[in-house]
């Protein structure tokens, strides 16, 4: 019987090596695999390259991993935001390499990695600082730059529901980067709010098919915090 559900965070993290490239789902406070990130910090793998939209906020989750000195490089689109204090400290100290990528190009490079496309052309960032030095080609009178796929060793994903095969559903904005991250790593590890029986997710209702998932752990941490004052 296929059963990808593991009981302990340590088992979920087993075998992650120094030097790994790690993809992270999540956007804002939603769909962040924070408990997996804390477990990865605990697990101890070093010299990581992290691929995510942001570069962490506060001192937990990704910021905790970075504060523990485990991240050599980050590939992201939005490193500086309110609360990206650890990122800024590490940058100031010259301890963190940054590769800045336009958000859509980031998503597409990872999609390409998961889809067996080693490189593709896009108009995004042509003629800008970010596009400098990249191969340029013209199609139908418009200029495009060549971008390479991103493939990774590990993906950390947060889902709303998962079954024992690893089929996943996300809840509204919890989807974000999670499905694409799940496709582009050798080892995809999922924390899920809910475990459901096999067959409970209808075949037309699955967002991430089980083929992309290696391990699932049940982390019912509850709702994300409010994003803005509501009064």
């Amino acid at each position, binding site marked *: 019987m296929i059963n990808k559900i593991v009981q302990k965070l340590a088992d979920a993290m087993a075998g992650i090596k120094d030097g790994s490239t790690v993809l992270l789902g999540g956007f804002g406070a939603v769909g962040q695999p924070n408990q997996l990130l804390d477990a990865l910090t605990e697990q101890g793998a070093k010299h990581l390259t992290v691929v995510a939209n942001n570069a962490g906020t506060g001192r937990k989750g990704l910021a905790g991993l970075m504060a523990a000195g485990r991240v050599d490089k980050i590939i992201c689109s939005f490193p500086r935001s309110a609360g990206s204090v650890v990122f800024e400290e590490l*940058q100031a100290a010259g301890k963190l390499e940054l590769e800045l990528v336009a958000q859509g190009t980031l998503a597409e490079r990872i999609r390409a990695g998961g889809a067996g496309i080693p490189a593709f052309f896009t108009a995004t960032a042509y003629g800008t600082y970010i596009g400098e030095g990249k191969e340029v080609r013209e199609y139908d009178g418009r200029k495009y730059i060549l971008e390479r796929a991103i493939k990774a060793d590990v993906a950390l994903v947060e889902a709303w529901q998962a079954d024992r095969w690893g089929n996943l559903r*996300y809840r509204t*904005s919890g989807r974000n980067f999670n499905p694409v991250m799940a496709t582009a790593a050798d080892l995809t590890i999922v924390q899920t709010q809910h475990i459901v029986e096999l067959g409970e997710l209808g075949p037309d209702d699955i967002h991430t098919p089980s083929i992309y998932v290696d391990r699932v752990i049940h982390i019912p941490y509850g709702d994300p915090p409010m994003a803005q004052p509501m009064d």
Partner: protein
Amino acid sequence: MTATTAAAAKSQGANNVRGWGRKEMAARLAQDIPEGWYVNLGIGIPLAVGDYIPADREVVLQSENGIVGMGPLQTRANLDTWIVNAGKQNVTLMKGAAMVSHSDSFAMIRGGHLDLCVLGSFEVAANGDFANWTTSLKSVPAVGGAMDLAVGAQRIWLIMEHTAKDGKPRLLEKCTMPLTAPSVVKRVYTNLAVVDITARGFELVEMNPEITFEALQERTGAKLHKKG
């Protein structure tokens, strides 16, 4: 008052022209969005455009983190912290909304499916170049989805102050700051005017009634053509 002091006063007065406020700019832009368009509104003032779309006109707002059919901000009465927009605010979903992943959202954006994207900007040039992502490359900037939106949407409209705080023009012959994208802007809504960008460069569509054409040209860093 002598003629000289009158001219000076006029000039002085013109320097002080505040023009439309941000809400008025947003409302002015909202008028120009027809029913049925799919529109992405950038973070900041652009997002306020959504508040001024007439209630009887269906416009579908896209947010680049995967919402097609974004509604107004949440209140305590309809709180669901799982829903955020690209500005990371808790928003509502319209009836008919669909959620997609970031990769599907940017496929939509890059593929030319948005009728319009409204962005804020620091600078815009008469050839349609604009610079809205960073004022300088000295510190590490964030880029987010601006560059993808800039090249992907059918139309880029900017909503921005006509001049910087020190009075320097932000509508220029050539941008001085790092570009977001070359040659994409179609229209600019400022506190002083609505300006199209055409093959000729800046073309005036509408002026704030508080200002004269000459005073507006003074505050514009490239030739301002009259329509026609």
